């Protein structure tokens, strides 16, 4: 029984300098054809499971014109949702308006995720994003929804701790229940990378991370990059981190179904022509455990020892390389959970690479 589903809308009105997601310039004709194919893919693959979480991401789903936007929401009506579902859609701040939000409300969306990234005009320019009056926009959202996430990006070479501090103060002022903070990654095939930008010094990066943890104290730091008020943790993202199965529809979308990790083709023309050929990774039990660990340890609470046992019939504490890490105090056991010592959370790859 699959409980979660991700839908990818690959269109953006403007391309950000750091972006290496699967996205294309918005074009009404393509978008409309895309939705047709999307609907087809869902019909083909969705098994009528009762879902707990549904997430429409991108790209920028909110960039669709109002009629296409409604068409998207209509398509998503196909999914059966349980009584206590979480249904998120991503918005770019400029796209926020009463018309789109009330549509969302009408179609059952109950969580909005907004890519603010920064309040600082220089930062925004550097990231290739537009400035709007974010506070006003969030107030509009709040008229319809209380479950709101905002994204923040930090660690730009032009940024100092002071700028970040101001950004964090502004975030706090917004008084939203969920915040994601991502340190800027310079990925291949991005405008920044092409310009020769290098990642900032890791000591500064780490200082910024500490500052964020400090400023967002009233939130629960429940995953490396995510902060939530009690009860507002993203259940959809927890599906990933708990290594549970999910559908993924749309170009370049990832899914995890019946012990297979599936990655759809990133070719939008092929996708529009209903060629969904995907890359499939079949998982052995060892692979699954490997994923369980590298995902589970992203959560600050860690991995439930009992759940792990129930899933794999193995005592996680006795796993070959986990034992040593516990002895080294790199992993910590507390309240029947095993987690990464918070001193090592920001260098968790050093620990996780033991598990692949």
């Amino acid at each position, binding site marked *: 029984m699959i409980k979660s589903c991700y839908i990818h809308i690959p269109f953006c009105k403007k391309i950000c300098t750091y972006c290496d997601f699967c996205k294309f310039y918005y074009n009404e004709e393509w978008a409309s054809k895309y939705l047709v194919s999307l609907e087809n893919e869902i019909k083909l693959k969705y098994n009528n499971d009762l879902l707990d979480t549904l997430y429409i991401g991108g790209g920028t789903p909110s960039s669709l014109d109002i009629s296409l936007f409604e068409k998207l929401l209509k398509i998503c009506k196909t999914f059966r949702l349980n009584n206590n579902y979480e249904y998120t859609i991503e918005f770019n701040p400029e796209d926020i308006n009463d018309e789109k939000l009330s549509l969302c409300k009408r179609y059952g969306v109950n969580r909005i995720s907004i890519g603010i990234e920064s309040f600082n005009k220089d930062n925004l320019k550097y990231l290739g994003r537009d400035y709007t009056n974010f506070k006003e926009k969030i107030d509009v959202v709040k008229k319809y929804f209380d479950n709101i996430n905002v994204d923040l990006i930090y660690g730009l070479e032009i940024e100092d701790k002071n700028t970040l501090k101001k950004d964090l103060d502004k975030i706090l002022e917004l008084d939203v229940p969920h915040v994601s903070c*991502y340190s800027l990654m310079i990925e291949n095939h991005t405008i920044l990378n092409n310009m020769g930008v290098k990642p900032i010094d890791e000591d500064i*990066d780490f200082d910024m991370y500490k500052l964020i943890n400090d400023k967002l104290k009233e939130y629960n730091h429940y995953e490396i990059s995510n902060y939530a008020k009690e009860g507002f943790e993203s259940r959809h993202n927890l599906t990933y981190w708990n290594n549970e199965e999910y559908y993924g529809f749309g170009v370049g979308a*990832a899914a995890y179904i019946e012990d297979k990790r599936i990655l759809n083709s990133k070719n939008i023309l092929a996708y529009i022509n209903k060629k969904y050929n995907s890359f499939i990774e079949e998982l052995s039990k060892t692979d699954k455990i490997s994923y369980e660990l590298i995902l589970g340890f992203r959560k600050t609470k860690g991995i439930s020892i009992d759940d792990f046992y129930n899933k794999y019939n193995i005592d996680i504490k006795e796993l070959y390389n986990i034992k040593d890490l516990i002895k080294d105090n790199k992993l910590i056991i507390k309240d029947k959970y095993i987690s990464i010592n918070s001193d090592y959370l920001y260098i968790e790859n050093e620990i996780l*690479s033991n*598990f692949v």
Partner: protein
Amino acid sequence: MNQEKIRNFAIIAHIDHGKSTLADRMLELSGNVSKREMTSQILDNMELEKERGITIKMNAVRLNYKGYEFNLIDTPGHVDFSYEVSRSLAACEGAILLVDATQGIEAQTLANYYLALENDLEVIPVINKIDLPNSDVEKVSNELINTFGFTKDEIILTSGKTGEGVDKLLDAVIDRVPAPKGNKNSKLKALIFDSVFDSYKGVIVHVRIIDGELNFKDKIRFMSNNSNYDITELGYTTPKIVNVDKLSSGDVGYICASIKTISDIKIGDTITLDNDPCDEPLKGYEEVKPMVYSGIFPVETREYDLLKDALEKLAINDASLTFIPETSKALGFGFRCGFLGLLHMDIIKERLEREFNLNIILTAPSVIYNVCLTNKDMVSISNPSDLPPVEKISYIEEPYIKTNIFTPIDYIGPIMELCENKRGTFRNMEYINETRVNIHYELPLSEIMYDFFDKLKSVTKGYASFDYELIGYRQNRLVKMDILLNGEKVDALSMIVHKDFAYNIGKNMVNRLRSIIPRQMFEVPIQAFINNKAIARETIKPLRKNVLAKCYGGDISRKKKLLEKQKEGKKKMKNIGSVEVPPEAFLEILNLRS
């Protein structure tokens, strides 16, 4: 073939003067290799030779020309491979001495010419690359006449590019190089001048038959250890393999005999017939003395046996490589290997990595030091970490060399400055002609091991060439410098340095190590010590960030791939104490003195 119609000769020259290219033209002219099959420097058949554009191994081929059998050996030009040249020459009666018409006589021209004389060979002087617009035949002729005493009409002009003059050169080989002198009816004496390991055929030995005859059905005996074998294959290369039933005195060819016991084969050994042996073996070769030593260790300790096997097989093909087992506290079990120079060392490293697929660590090269102890005993050490405690040392001696540096006079100043900086003593200078000189300096061998070549090249814009000979040992104020990583002494990083330079070297060394060793999960101090006194210190800051921040729309495979890549990277590292050290760190000293 009538012995009178055999001509055995080697092509010798300074590096890059066109030996292998000229051999191409000879192979073409004799019809051995058709134009269609021809590739540039066809005898450079090793991948590394092709990549670097240099000859590393000698290569013998047979060609037929005007009813004569020619056995030609192409030799390397670089100093580090001069043992290949001297072994080739012992299988020949003649040598073609090439000189690049745009360069003139260089250091290895001189060195190789004298090698040919030592072997009593007929030397044919050739000026090559005459097709080049900046060639100066007149000037180079005069150099040959004045330096070696050739006469003007002995000199032959060729171009390996256009083939011009190659026919005249081959005619000169017929006329001037004497036929082999051996006696076909005497008992068999065959000189092993090269060998190579082949996983199907066993060891293939390349021989020059000095006396007697060898038939396919014969049983052979190696005279150094009396082991005997039935021949499984006889032949020669053109460079294609040609099988024959018989090799007779004067011939150059190869023998296979399913030899799997590598230690039975010794370069320079004499092969005779088992049922009719000769009395005395041939003189053979002088053993080569390595110039530098370095430790070779497997990154993964369990690859020790593979490394041993690989070194044995390589040594079969490279008589100048020596190795004995060695143990390092930091690196475990490995081998102390002797090389003729740093290029040689680099080539062996690459061959181990490529041909045998090994992950290895090389430690800093070291010369052999003579250590006189307080009790008057003298010990030789090739590994700095073997140095006895200071209180037991009376003094230390290091090897010195005398240089031949061939250079246009414009660069005399910078060269002298360079040599002075390397603790050199000026001896004298010879004029080759009005514009070029040969500078003689005496230098510690350890000083030229590192960046001397590169420095020389850069201060002379590549116009100088360099060769050296050992002249003995001299006492100097030398001390051992130890490196401590995270408080632990790493024996593989110890080095012997001159006291006056120790402080600077120590500072540079810890600095370089700091930049080459990646951050770890904890802070790592690096220190340089002399006689238990710290002279330099750096700290590697702890790792602060190694995390993938975002999982794009659930694309988690990507995260796993990244972790797998990181893990691969870690595998290449050596764990010293609890510090992960990249193998290059142990050779970092090479980049140091610059």
